[in-house]
């Protein structure tokens, strides 16, 4: 099956990409850059970094900017998927959806309308296991956004490792957070992974945080040889 991957540059869509390439032909990445910070569908810190991540992966990227109004952003995503169907003849779209029926059902509806498969390799997977897998596979993933108590700016820019996973599981047990940020508590950015031909190096960044909400904004980055 020829696939496109809905790619945010975070751990879930990057892991879904790794799974997809093991079993099918991935021809392009698709990214929606939402200008609406409140978007439940597409807002991700450092979304513009997907251009550099796509270069690192040596995969074509279809990138569309959307104002992020709830239904218009889906229309913009539909336009991007249509382009992938036209340009790359994709037969299915891969998502990194794990638990969110809000996101999953909207993308299912789009794919159904466009008559392509909607493929969700991580769907309903154990979130702790997914975090461990990301580390075990050698992903270099940093926390690029925190949006829930008791997370704060101390977490921003830190790399996810075994120690952090244990801390996240403890927070999950004590405060009901989703350990992998499925409820939007955490956003991540992948700087390196097995499929990356080059790795990203952050040259300049800025922490923007207030209380239990903040982002680690990558202002400048480059690709380095692995």
């Amino acid at each position: 099956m020829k696939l496109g991957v809905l790619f945010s540059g975070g751990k879930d869509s990057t892991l879904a990409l790794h799974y997809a390439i093991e079993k099918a032909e991935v021809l392009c990445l698709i990214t929606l850059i939402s200008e609406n910070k409140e978007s439940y569908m597409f807002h991700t810190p450092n979304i513009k970094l997907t251009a550099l991540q796509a270069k690192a992966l040596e995969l074509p990227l279809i990138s569309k900017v959307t104002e992020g109004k709830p239904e218009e952003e889906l229309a913009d995503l539909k336009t991007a998927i249509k382009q992938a169907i036209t340009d790359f003849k994709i037969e299915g779209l891969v998502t990194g959806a794990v638990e969110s029926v809000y996101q999953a059902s909207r993308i299912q509806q789009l794919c159904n309308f466009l008559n392509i498969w909607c493929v969700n390799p991580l769907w309903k997977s154990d979130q702790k296991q997914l975090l461990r897998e990301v580390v075990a596979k050698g992903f270099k993933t940093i926390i690029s956004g925190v949006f829930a108590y008791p997370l704060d700016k101390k977490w921003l820019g830190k790399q996810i490792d075994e120690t952090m996973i244990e801390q996240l599981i403890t927070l999950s047990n004590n405060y009901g957070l989703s350990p992998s940020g499925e409820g939007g508590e955490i956003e991540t950015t992948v700087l390196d992974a097995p499929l990356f031909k080059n790795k990203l190096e952050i040259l300049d960044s800025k922490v923007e945080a207030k209380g239990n909400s903040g982002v680690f904004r990558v202002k400048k980055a480059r690709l380095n040889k692995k």
Partner: protein
Amino acid sequence: MILIVDMNSKENPFGFQEFVLPILSISEELEKCTTKHYLELNTTDLKDFEKIILSGSALMDTTTDSQMSRFNWLKKIDIPILGICAGMQTIGLVFGGYLENCREIGMIKIETFKKNILFSSTFQAYSLHNYSLEPPAEFEILAKSENCIQAIRHKDKDIYGVLFHPEVRNKEVIQKFIQAF
């Protein structure tokens, strides 16, 4: 031992992960389970299982609809069966029902019409289908959404079908089926 039948087309590289593994992870907390793809079922081995669950499949996947002869065993065995989405449609088709266009994608409200062991009253559930089942005469309707029939039961056998996907937001439906038999 529970048999979970993978109803996905081999064309879908992740049908097992998306539609079978979530059922397996819920079921194996209660009883030992095994999974088999429907094309690899040896019907003579079915007597080894105490319960059977037929999985759902992707929206684009309609391959089982044209392979009903592979599921004639559903009429011959006397084991409790739960069909989920494509699984329910398959049960209905084998017994002589038919499919109608009915698209529901996302969370929907379901109303219980008949007392049963799986659920009660009104509840929300995740749906993912383009077709609903008009059940054959041997089945009674247990629940409906605004648009279509959501659950059925054989009048004389322990055969159940749900059109919604209980593995997503209603895992207690699968647990109750397993615990009831």
